[in-house]
């Protein structure tokens, strides 16, 4: 295992360090809170010569992603970062990046969407982009944000995949908090991510190719979308394989899902992002009191790890899914819908309840989590009828 440096710093500073270490040829970005300090740090790294990246300032996120797409098609290793309204403004280009099969790596510092205007954390931004054929990883901690960013490069550039990757960390909670983390040295990261060998690079003048071709009515649009689905399916094993390789150099494991206490749990909470820590903390306390509770953290949201989720949740007496975004008018939040769908084929389907929580950065207090476990216990033990969607902690 490689030597590592113990640091106390913010999630954003660590992501910027990861970007420096993966040495992108081009970073094109537009600053937006709470992502700003990532791109400010990259700009500083570039200005001080610590990394030889071409840093492109743009006039909007739409332009930032457009520049990333151009650079990536040209054959460059490309990274960027955004969040919330910025990701929303990129939306059109997200589909172009993935449709052109460009392995761009982007950090997204999860931020709520206005209105009312709000700069704090929730997952509305990334859930809005969940169908855009971007591989989507979530971090609980600054450490995971650093690790995911480095792994993202290997996943995106893998010849079986060639899809862009979004590495998500919770705005302010993870981006701006000082946390303890371990950093790999520059050489180890450089060796891990390897030299980028682009496919069909436009600047490969020996082998000219034509990108962005029309494929309209009677054309092959449908077939190219099927290719994307197949690539996303192949990404599952690539994500796992890259995770194993990363564990070998860092000592930190990576699972598409990460369970705590799931071996003999009777009830469990499914959660994404920084709140997984809060849930695990409460679960530990309840375990100490003899309650068989578990936690299932989703670390890779796209591709959605259906098999892992099914095998982790099989046989439970009650499950709660925590959504940090809502799908207004749907039966529940996006994670809830997919978890329920994943369990549909089981012979015995456990009851699943949905809580929308922490929108716009609302504090995820521990007593709220205690309440969810208590509700689950009511369903599992006292046969209480599962409640419909609950806004957790609402006034």
């Amino acid at each position, binding site marked *: 295992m490689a030597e590592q440096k113990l640091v106390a710093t913010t999630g954003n500073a660590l992501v910027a360090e990861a970007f420096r270490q993966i040495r992108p040829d081009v970073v094109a970005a537009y600053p937006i809170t709470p992502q700003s300090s990532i791109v400010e740090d990259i700009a500083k790294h570039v200005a001080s010569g610590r990394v030889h990246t071409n840093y492109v300032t743009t006039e909007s996120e739409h332009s930032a992603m457009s520049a990333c797409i151009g650079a990536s098609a040209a054959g460059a290793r490309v990274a960027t970062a955004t969040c919330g309204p910025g990701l929303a403004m990129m939306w059109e280009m997200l589909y172009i990046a993935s449709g052109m099969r*460009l392995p761009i790596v982007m950090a997204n510092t999860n931020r709520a969407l206005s209105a009312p205007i709000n700069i704090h954390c929730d997952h509305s931004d990334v859930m809005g982009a969940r169908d855009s054929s971007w591989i989507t990883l979530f971090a609980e901690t600054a450490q995971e944000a650093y690790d995911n960013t480095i792994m993202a490069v290997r996943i995106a550039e893998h010849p079986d995949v*060639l899809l862009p990757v979004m590495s998500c960390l919770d705005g302010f909670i993870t981006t701006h908090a000082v946390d303890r983390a371990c950093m790999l040295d520059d050489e180890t990261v450089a060796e891990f991510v390897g030299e980028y060998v682009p496919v*069909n690079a436009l600047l490969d003048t020996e082998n000219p*190719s*034509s990108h962005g071709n029309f494929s309209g009515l009677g054309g092959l649009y449908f*077939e*190219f979308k099927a*290719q994307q689905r*197949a690539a996303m399916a192949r990404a599952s094993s690539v994500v796992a394989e890259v995770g194993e390789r990363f564990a070998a150099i860092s000592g930190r494991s990576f699972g598409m899902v990460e369970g705590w206490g799931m071996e003999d749990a009777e009830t469990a909470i499914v959660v994404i992002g920084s709140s997984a820590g809060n849930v695990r903390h409460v679960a530990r306390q309840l375990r100490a009191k003899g309650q068989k509770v578990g936690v299932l953290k989703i670390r890779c949201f796209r591709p959605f790890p259906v098999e892992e989720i099914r095998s982790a949740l099989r046989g439970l007496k009650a499950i709660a899914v925590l959504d940090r975004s809502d799908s207004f008018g749907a039966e529940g939040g996006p994670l809830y819908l997919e978890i329920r769908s994943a369990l549909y084929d089981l012979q015995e389907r456990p009851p699943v309840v949905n809580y929308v929580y922490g929108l716009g950065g609302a504090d995820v207090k521990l007593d709220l989590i205690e309440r969810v476990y208590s509700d689950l216990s009511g369903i599992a033990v006292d046969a209480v009828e599962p409640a419909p969607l609950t806004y957790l902690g609402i006034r």
Partner: protein
Amino acid sequence: MKWDISRAGEWKAKDFPIACVIPTVGNSDDYDVGGWRSERPVREDDVCTQCLLCWIFCPDSSVVLDGEKVVAFDYEHCKGCGICAKECPTNPKFGRKAIEMISEGCELPGVK
């Protein structure tokens, strides 16, 4: 290496190159667009001054040269835009241009 698309009609989704990229150059040569024409250029060799303006202006590289002399049009790729006829200078000796656009009519020679 030339990209072989001769059996593209039988390809399945997985057989197409990634991301709708066309991985080689020059394959537009394989694509017959002669049928797009409603008028075709015809050239009188006697009247032609061999100024090569038609060759310069043709957007589809469909003016065929032999050495530095215009000898023919490539009717598989000429879309009948008429730029060659427009640019063709009047030969003062004959009082007319060498290139003239004529209707394709009902016959479509050179089109599969």
